[in-house]
């Protein structure tokens, strides 16, 4: 049998990505979408607790400038078993900080394949697509898929009466990306 022409994929263009672990699974995120990588310890005392029962994946908020950033627990976002997090990704041009277990490595991807149509639930928002690295399939996360604008509005309302300590937006990051 002869095969169909290959499935349409994004144009070939090298893209720097960070491979990170969340609950022992590996995900990729574009380096360009990560502004800073900090250790969880560096934000101790700077975050306030958020108790919103409809958004269990968000347990903390931190203030950056005049806005709050909401810390999304990556394993919980992806429906995985929560694990002790070591790092926080502060996402660029986003109200989201992402709690992850650790960084696997930084690398480059040259091909991003669309998520097959059979995946038809939340994962279509979670991922930009999938890529193949060293004969492994790695999902590439969508940085804008962690919180919807409605969820951010809800969290703003929940935290509006709380005084959040400022985190050093311009201080030296642990790892500038």
């Amino acid at each position, binding site marked *: *049998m002869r095969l169909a022409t*290959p*499935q349409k994929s994004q144009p070939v263009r090298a893209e720097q990505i960070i491979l990170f672990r969340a609950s022992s699974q590996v995900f990729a995120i574009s380096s360009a979408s990560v502004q800073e990588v900090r250790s969880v310890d560096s934000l101790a005392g700077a975050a306030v607790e958020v108790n919103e029962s409809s958004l269990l994946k968000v347990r903390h908020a931190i203030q950056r400038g005049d806005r709050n950033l909401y810390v999304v627990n990556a394993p919980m976002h992806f429906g995985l078993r929560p694990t002790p997090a070591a790092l926080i990704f502060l996402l660029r041009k986003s109200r989201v900080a992402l709690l992850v277990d650790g960084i696997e490595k930084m690398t480059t991807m040259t091909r991003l394949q669309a998520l*097959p*149509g*059979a*995946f038809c639930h939340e*994962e279509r928002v979670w991922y930009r697509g999938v890529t193949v690295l060293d004969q492994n399939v790695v999902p590439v996360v969508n940085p804008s898929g962690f919180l919807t604008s409605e969820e951010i509005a809800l969290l703003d309302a929940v935290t509006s009466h709380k005084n959040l300590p400022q985190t050093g937006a311009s201080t030296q990051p642990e790892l500038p990306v």
Partner: protein
Amino acid sequence: MTWTDQLDTCSCVLLRLGERRFALAAHQVAELAAPSRVFRFAHRTPEIDGVILRRGRIVPVCDIAEQLTGRKLTQRRFYLIATRRQQDGLDWIALPVSGECELIQADLTPASPSDSPHVSAWLSHQGEVIEVLNLYALTPGSPDPGNARLPQPALPEVRA
């Protein structure tokens, strides 16, 4: 044409799921692949086991045996790589099957309105009446299951 009409002879692929045999229109079949590593990542589509890598493509694995026979496949499996027409081209999906598949020519009898949605037609082969599967009703993320009841004409991209 009404559902009681007899269709022309059609190429079908016979597949085995446990003890039962089913058929799929040949134009929906790309190839039969040997067992290979299944990659798993977080998602919320329960019908999908994971994905396999096949000729550079990422192909989701969907075990339809449980829907059709009530039991998941446990023995060593092959993957029947099937295609579904989507708005922007063909979508591939890997169906675990129990063993080798067989390409046959058979006269199809269209499904009646009282048949299950997963039946697109019936065929008779070696004294056995076999369901021709409606892939769109069995696999998630199908564009429009209602339009896929009967086998479609052969597609130029996939050739047996």
